[in-house]
C-alpha cells in the first residue's frame, strides 16, 4: 500500500500536471491558430495589385500585329489591340451602347460591336452606329515580355 498522504499528494501533483498541460496546449494551439492567419496575411499574394488596377494582359509574342485579344480587367472584359503599326492599345471592351463585348476587326482595322453594328476607331472613338460615347481607354506598357494594362488616371 503506501502512505495515503503521499498518494494524495501524488494525485494532486499529477492533477496539477494535467491542468498545466491542458492550459498550456490550449493556449499554444489557440495562439497558433491566431498567428497562422496573420502570417499568411502578411505574405503578399501572387496577385500583387488589385486586378481592377493592373493586369498582365498578354505576352508580346502571343499577339501578332493586326490582332486583338479580350482579357479580364477587374470584373469586366477589356480589349487589347496590337495594331499594324506595332502599337499596343487597350480599351474597356464594354460597348457604350448596351454593354455587349466589342471585338477587333482585322479586315476593317477597327473595333466592332456585333450586337447593333456599332463601330469604334482605334482611338476608341465611336464613329458609327448607336454607341453614344467612346470606349474608355486604358494605359498599356510593355515590360519585357509582358504587356501590362493599367487603369488610366
Amino acid at each position: 500500500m503506501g502512505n495515503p498522504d503521499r498518494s494524495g499528494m501524488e494525485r494532486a501533483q499529477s492533477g496539477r500536471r494535467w491542468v498545466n498541460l491542458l492550459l498550456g496546449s490550449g493556449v499554444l494551439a489557440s495562439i497558433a491558430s491566431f498567428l497562422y492567419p496573420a502570417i499568411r496575411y502578411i505574405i503578399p499574394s501572387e496577385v500583387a495589385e488589385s486586378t481592377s488596377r493592373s493586369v498582365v494582359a498578354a505576352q508580346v509574342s502571343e499577339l501578332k500585329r493586326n490582332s486583338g485579344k479580350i482579357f479580364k480587367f477587374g470584373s469586366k472584359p477589356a480589349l487589347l489591340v496590337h495594331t499594324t503599326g506595332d502599337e499596343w492599345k487597350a480599351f474597356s471592351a464594354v460597348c457604350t451602347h448596351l454593354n455587349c463585348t466589342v471585338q477587333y476587326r482585322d479586315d476593317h482595322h477597327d473595333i466592332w460591336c456585333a450586337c447593333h453594328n456599332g463601330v469604334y476607331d482605334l482611338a476608341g472613338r465611336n464613329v458609327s452606329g448607336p454607341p453614344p460615347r467612346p470606349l474608355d481607354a486604358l494605359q498599356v506598357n510593355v515590360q519585357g515580355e509582358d504587356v501590362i494594362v493599367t487603369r488610366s488616371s
Partner: protein
Amino acid sequence: MRGVLRTILSWLDERFGAGSIEAFLRHKTVPIHRHTIWYYFGGMTLFLFVIQVLTGILLLLYYRPTPDDAYESVQYIVTQVRFGWLIRSVHSWAANLMIFTAFVHMFSVYFLKAYRKPRELTWITGILLLFLAMGFGFSGYLLPWNTLGYFATKVGTEMAGSVPFAGKWMLTFLRGGEEVTGATLTRFFGFHVAVLPGLTTVLLAGHLLLVQHLGMSVPPSVERAIAEGREQARLMPFFPNFLLRDMIGWYAALGVLGALAAVFPWELGTKADPFAPAPAGIRPEWYFLFMFETLKHLPPKILFLEGEFAGLVAFGLAAAVWVIVPFLDYRAGFGRVTRFFTGLGVFALGFMAAMSLLALR
C-alpha cells in the same frame, strides 16, 4: 522554464528596476464582492483596443487612402489577401464590441460611484477616452469609401456645421473643404491612424497609471457593509487569479469575434458615388443613433434657438456635465449616495437605449 524567466527578470531589473514593477504586480489585489464582475470590463475594453491596433496595423499594410483606391484596396484585402476577410471583419466587429464594452465600463463605474474622490482624474481621462473611441469609430467608418460610410460622414459633419460661429470652421476642418471629398478621406485617415492613436496612448497611459496607483475602488454600499461588519473584506491577487479570469473573458471575446467574422462578415457595400442621391434610410453607426434620432424629433424652433442647434447644445452640455460629474457629486467622496445622480444615470442610460431602439425601428 522558471529559471530562465528569473534570469531575464534580474537582468532587466539591474538595468531599469523591472523588479519593482514585478513586485508591484505581485502585490496588486482586486476586491471580491457582489459587484466584482464589473471590474472585468475595463480590461476587456483594453484587450479589444489591442486587437484593433494589431488588426489595424495589418490592414495598413494593404489599405490605400485615396478615393480612387480606397474601396478597391479594401476589396482587394477581402478577396485577394489570404485571411484578409478575417482581419477586416474582426477589425470592424471588434470596433463595435469595444465601444459597447467601453459604455458598459463607463456606466458601471458611474453607478458604482468609482469616480468619487480620489479617482476624479481617472474618470475624466476615461470619459475622454470614450470620446476618442467614438472618434475612432466615426473616422474609421469613412475609410472603405463605400456608400454607407460616405453619406454617414456627410450627415455627421453636416451636424457639426450647424453650430453657429464655430460651426463653419469645424465643418471645413473636419471635411478638409466644403464637401466630403478625397481631402476628407486623407484627413480622416490621418486622424484614425496617427492623431487619435497618439492622443489615446497618452490618455490611456495616464488612465492605467492612475488605476495602478489608486487601486480598485470598492462600491460605497460594500464599503458600508464592511464597516458595519456585515461583510468581510476579501481580496484576490491580481496575478495570477484575476488575470486568469480576465484571460477567460478575452478568449471568449476572441471566439465571438472569429464567429462573427466567419458567419456575419462585415459588408463591403458599393463604392461611394458623391453625385448619386443619398440612399434611403441612411443612418450613422449604432453608438451615434441616439443623437441622430433625438435630432430628428426636435421641433424646428425651441425658444429662440433653431431646433437642431438646440439639440446639439443640449448634448454638448450633457457631455460637459458627464465629464465633471465627480465634482458635482462630491458627496460621494464622503461615502454618501445622492439619489439624484443615480437617477440621472438611469435617465441617461434609458434615454440612449430608447432613442437607439427607436432609430432602428
